[in-house]
């Protein structure tokens, strides 16, 4: 089905209206058995489409005007439920728009609904949702990947033209890889986090999931930039990049092609690298020597930040409340009954790592290792323009395959977490398939060089 560009042209040339388009997507959503949406509002979607059509009629409208999209249910859309796929927020209604939503609304997008995710964006498979897992559109016995499971599955299954996800340790790139769509995790600070339910505040970024690189670029351009509501957001103008595969220096981290990677996945990634070389790129082996520590580092820092961020769900200010006994009982029971297994596990890890007597050995040590990981990338980018590597060591796993072994689930994030620790931008680009299961190539850029990633990824799209 349609890309943003094609839909925009169709609207411009009066081949169809935004209402037509919106109705077509709503039909798909209603017939879907993927569980990619947690909620959608037909009446409101049509109303937005009518407003967009009026704007289009006037002749002056932006590229996203009238384009139907889906939003991860951790991002606030005023007046709509925002559950973070958690029982504790089952009936929470967002009192205001996230900055990214405000920006999309200014262009006149049509928001179809809110998509499924791992509870509080914690997970790599999408199975940690309190409202059931999202199925992979390519094989319904397999996971869609997480945490932005519904955002990736909905775009892959043509239930939305594009979507927004969020990425703390791979949550945009993993599901994009598993579902065969294009997803960008922007540079830390490129996109405002205001209105995103916080998980790991030094790692979280909102980003686009789309049908192709151009669409991801269009959406990224619409949502990036400084926001006074997020002190970590940066002034940002996405400039056109003349970067091209010809003469481009591509770094290949030698530590990423060792044991643990699926042979077929490795073949697909190596083939993509070969194609880049054939197109004139120079392939340079690099070393990210602290890679072996990245996963441990991430699984201390992210849960530590999460344990602080999730303290606010206390059964008093919002969400589920178990009014039983004294004040302490309200806290204990509301959290105990409201949070799912994985969320509790992460809160426990984080609380442990920050607790008296363990802080130096875990949290402080992890912060030091984070510096090493940043230095590795800084050194690599002195020599190369971009880094190519896998998104995930495996294609989409079977439902339930790793749910009983959290550590094996965490190992799926081995290639994605370093990017968040270093605050870098990275894109997942469909690069091939293992039987019918898509595999993504990860393209990592230096800080605020999304333009270079987009330029090169569009060329790669043509040769893959």
């Amino acid at each position, binding site marked *: 089905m349609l890309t943003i560009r094609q839909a925009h042209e169709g609207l411009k040339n009066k081949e169809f209206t935004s209402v037509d388009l919106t109705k077509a997507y709503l039909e798909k959503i209603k017939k879907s058995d993927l569980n990619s949406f947690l909620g959608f509002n037909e009446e409101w979607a049509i109303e937005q489409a009518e407003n967009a059509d009026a704007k289009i009629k006037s002749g002056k409208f932006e590229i996203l005007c009238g384009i139907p999209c889906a939003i991860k249910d951790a991002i606030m859309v005023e007046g709509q439920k925002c559950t973070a796929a958690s029982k504790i927020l089952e009936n929470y209604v967002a009192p205001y728009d996230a900055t990214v939503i405000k920006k999309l609304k200014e262009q006149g997008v049509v928001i179809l609904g809110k998509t499924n995710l791992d509870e509080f964006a914690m997970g790599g498979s999408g199975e940690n949702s309190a409202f059931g897992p999202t199925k992979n559109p390519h094989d319904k016995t397999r996971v869609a990947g997480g945490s932005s499971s519904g955002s990736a599955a909905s775009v892959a299954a043509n239930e939305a033209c594009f979507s927004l996800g969020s990425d703390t340790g791979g949550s945009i790139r993993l599901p994009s890889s598993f579902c065969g769509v294009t997803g960008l995790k922007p540079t830390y600070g490129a996109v405002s986090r205001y209105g995103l339910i916080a998980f790991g505040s030094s790692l979280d970024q909102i980003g686009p999931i789309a049908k192709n690189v151009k669409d991801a670029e269009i959406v990224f351009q619409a949502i990036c930039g400084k926001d006074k509501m997020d002190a970590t957001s940066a002034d940002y103008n996405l400039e056109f990049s003349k970067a091209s595969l010809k003469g481009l220096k591509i770094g290949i981290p030698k530590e990423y092609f060792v044991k643990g990677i699926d042979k077929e996945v490795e073949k697909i990634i190596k083939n993509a690298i070969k194609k880049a070389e054939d197109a004139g790129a120079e392939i340079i082996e690099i070393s990210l020597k602290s890679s072996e520590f990245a996963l*441990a580092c991430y699984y201390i820092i992210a849960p530590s930040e999460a344990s602080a961020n999730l303290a606010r769900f206390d059964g008093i200010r919002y969400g589920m409340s178990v009014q039983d006994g004294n004040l302490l009982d309200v806290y204990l029971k509301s*959290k105990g009954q409201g949070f799912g*297994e994985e969320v509790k*596990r992460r809160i426990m890890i984080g609380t442990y790592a920050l607790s008296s007597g363990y802080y130096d050995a875990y949290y402080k040590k992890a912060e030091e290792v984070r510096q090493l990981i940043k230095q590795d990338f800084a050194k690599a980018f002195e020599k190369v323009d971009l880094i190519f590597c896998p998104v995930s060591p495996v294609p989409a796993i079977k439902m339930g395959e790793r749910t009983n072994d959290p*550590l094996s689930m965490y190992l799926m994030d081995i290639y994605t977490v370093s990017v968040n620790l270093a605050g870098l931008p990275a894109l997942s680009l469909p690069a091939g398939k293992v039987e019918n299961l898509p595999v993504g190539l990860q393209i990592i850029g230096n800080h605020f060089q999304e333009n270079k990633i987009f330029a090169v990824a569009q060329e790669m799209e043509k040769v893959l």
Partner: protein
Amino acid sequence: MISKEEVQHIAKLARLELTEKEVEKMQKDLSAILDYFDLLKRAPKVKAQPASAKAPAWRGDEVISSYDIADELIGQAPDKKDDYIKVKNIF
């Protein structure tokens, strides 16, 4: 393996009520994860660095009213009276 008491202590710090079964599962899971973290001991030492090299973002200390969404914000509280959020006695 991390002890039952230790799990219960951490759970209390985190204000999480765990069932017997959850405590047992948590002992197992946390132990495996903490064992994995041990590999950080092999990481080279680095000099302590400030958390952020970037200058902090400053802004004027001005009052910005959010009274227009006060009803929506208070409306989310599970227990309330008029414009107030109700909390259990703390004494």
